[in-house]
């Protein structure tokens, strides 16, 4: 086993920012808005670095797809402890339509190229909330998947994953190589300290184009319109239960 882990990290609008829709309803405003690493990707990086610290794996490679700014996100992963980075350059229209299908193709190609033992991704991104990339990557590679992981441990040549599911927790064992997606309670990501950021400057980020990986970026989706969620309407107070039933019938909900 190569002992190499691939971690995907996505640059998204910071969770604390108030999102605004562009006047032409084509997308949200990103210009001049604060961006940072997707919180679930941070958890993924943290898990990979922890595995390396426990000497269960040998190398952590951080991958990001996007324009020049994606390198900032990779640098943060390096500052958290990843060993090297791969920046898959995607710009312009291709970047606007980049989604889980395209990214999973890229991740699958890289996983093969880098002979990865494990691919760890965040369970979903907080901008599109797709929750698909991990699953698609595993399918393209025909690898087992452990999604919504709240605990990951190595058990011989298998990986034990405790998954957060609707009914509670589910524990599975999967063979490696495998894809794991990180859920909220998997760990608490460390701060990238300033000394580590300085050290990370010396770590390498390789530049790769999707064409080099033989990946077709054409999107099968078209965004028709983006709207803000409807304003919350004021509630109505009623005096009795009969009034309540009456109002519900009026609104056509019973």
């Amino acid at each position, binding site marked *: 086993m190569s002992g190499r882990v691939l971690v995907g990290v996505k640059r998204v609008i910071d969770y604390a920012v108030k999102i605004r829709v562009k006047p032409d309803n084509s997308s949200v405003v990103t210009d001049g808005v604060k961006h940072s690493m997707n919180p679930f990707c941070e958890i993924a990086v943290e898990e990979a670095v922890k595995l390396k610290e426990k000497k269960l794996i040998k190398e952590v490679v951080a991958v990001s797809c996007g324009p020049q700014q994606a390198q900032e996100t990779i640098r943060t992963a390096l500052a958290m402890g990843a060993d090297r980075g791969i920046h898959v350059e995607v710009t312009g229209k291709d970047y606007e339509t980049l989604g889980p299908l395209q990214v999973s193709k890229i991740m699958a190609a890289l996983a093969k190229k880098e002979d990865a033992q494990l691919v760890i991704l965040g369970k979903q991104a907080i901008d599109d909330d797709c929750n698909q990339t991990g699953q698609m990557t595993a399918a393209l590679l025909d690898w087992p998947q452990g999604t919504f992981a709240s605990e990951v441990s190595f058990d011989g040549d298998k990986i034990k994953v405790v998954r957060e599911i609707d009914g509670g927790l589910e524990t599975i064992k999967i063979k490696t190589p495998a894809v794991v997606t990180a859920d909220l309670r998997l760990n608490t990501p460390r*701060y990238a*300290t*300033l000394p580590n950021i300085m050290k990370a400057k010396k770590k390498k980020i390789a530049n790769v184009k999707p064409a080099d990986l033989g990946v077709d970026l054409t999107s099968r989706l078209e965004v028709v319109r983006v709207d803000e969620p409807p304003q919350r309407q004021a509630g109505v107070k009623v005096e009795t239960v009969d009034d309540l039933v009456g109002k519900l019938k009026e609104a056509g909900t019973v």
Partner: protein
Amino acid sequence: MTENRNTFTTFPFLMFVLQAEVFPYPEIGNEEVEEINQLVAPVERFFTEEVDSAKIDREAKIPPETLNGLKELGLFGIMVPEEYGGLGLSNTMYARLAEIISLDGSIAVTLAAHQAIGLKGILIAGNEAQKQKYLPKLASGEHIAAFCLTEPGSGSDAASIQTRATLSEDGKQYLLSGSKIWISNGAIADVMTVFARTEVDVDGVKKDKISAFIVERAYGGITSGKAEDKLGIRGSNTCEVSFDNVPVPVENVIGEVGSGFKVAMNILNSGRFSMGSSSAGMIKKLIELTAEYAATRKQFNKSLSEFGMIQEKFAMMALNAFVMESMAYLTAGMMDRPGLPDCSLEAAMVKVFSSEGGWICVSEALQVLGGLGYTKDYPYERYVRDCRILPIFEGTNEILRMYIALTGMQYAGKALTGKIKEMKKGNIGMVFGVVGKKLKSSLGGSVDYGLTGKDGVVHPSLAESAKKFEQNVSHVGSTVESLLYRYGKTIVDEQLILKRVADVMINLYAMTAVLSRASRSISIGLRNHDHEVLLANTFCSDAFFKNNYLMTQLQKHSPENNDANIKKIAREVLENRAYICSHPLERTF
């Protein structure tokens, strides 16, 4: 004072020998910008998520976990070179980080007391052995530093300190005795920079001069008093520190024996500029918090943000933040130039402007919130309390104004002395030159120092402001000349005059900073540069008229000048140590 002073206030600075230094606005490389953004992110996050400022203020203590987090982030050795375990960042980067650290006043002062002054002496004046021995643990935060200069009887008059260090018989150590007060980190510091009087031999004559020492708490004989119960920055430890025959090895003298005062001044001068960026950072945060409220709170069926007097407050905060940022980064940029230029004058101007501007802005921000702002449920009252220290410490603004005015005039003095000598020699051409210039400026003739026009360094949309600036500059040149002529050396005692001169100089430096910054922003097309032009022009216009008024008051026999009366009132009150008017209800029979 350094001989070849090229920085801003050298007379005739007004002749723009200096253009090369302040135009264009200092820029840092692309890589550095990326690096700064990288470094800023985790610090911002730490302060937003892990720092409970209300709790720190309430309990008057920074929790150990928070302090540890700051150490791990690397914030205890920002400017210590990497070879000694620090981050080795420039003044510009330090200023950038200060914008975020200032979100909590207690943490800001604790960190500043540690590295901006506490260990700075070792950094700028220590020898290699001292650096190797002390810097690594100080940079990691394992040891905390403090700066011990002030004494009960010696605050602004630092040269009068009485703490004494006597050389032992065997010449191997000094015995240090005395008391210091208002020492930040006094109770928690392991390594202190202490200033004491030592006997020095100057050409066979024994003199008493101040020396700087690195003193470890471990040497014994050091006691810290109880923590002062302060109005603000309550989480920062401030106390008395007493030294009772503390043995300090001779190797721990910083610089030469007897050079301590200069070391102290250099240390203090080097840290001041960052007050500009820390105040700006705080005001920018306040604008966000306050604007949220002003936009949603309604009275008389309108939101507060629609009322003129509220709008004025926001404009004032934006203008102040803009000027402070511009001045701070201009100064930091100049300080980062090779050759270690002396920017102590510029740093002093930044400090005075930022401390007073900051104080006014936090007060106005509180005002917007009204009664809510007055309660502890909101952070405004804490910001007000924390800010009150700014005009006091790191050199009171009164002292700094004297420094600014006198140093600037020192050069004018030299230039004027030259002219007077010429005049005495009967150099008629010179006399006509001086008279001619005076006539020209009094007739309102236009002045051109080359800022605007074809080869000008200022962008055309700022041309009006640049012209106002040039006018002020020529006016102040002649004002200062005439003051020196009128008062000669006794000008040193005319504080009310010097105060006005200093205020004009501070305004001029501020105008330079905004003109330079805005010019650059337009030229490179930064986002929202139109807003910058608006801010720059508004500030310059305001400052122009203020300067004119100040200079009018400085004219001989100016009716706008009430100084004589003010001094008389003060004398009568102080002689009686009370208000002396008869009560309005009193009768005479």
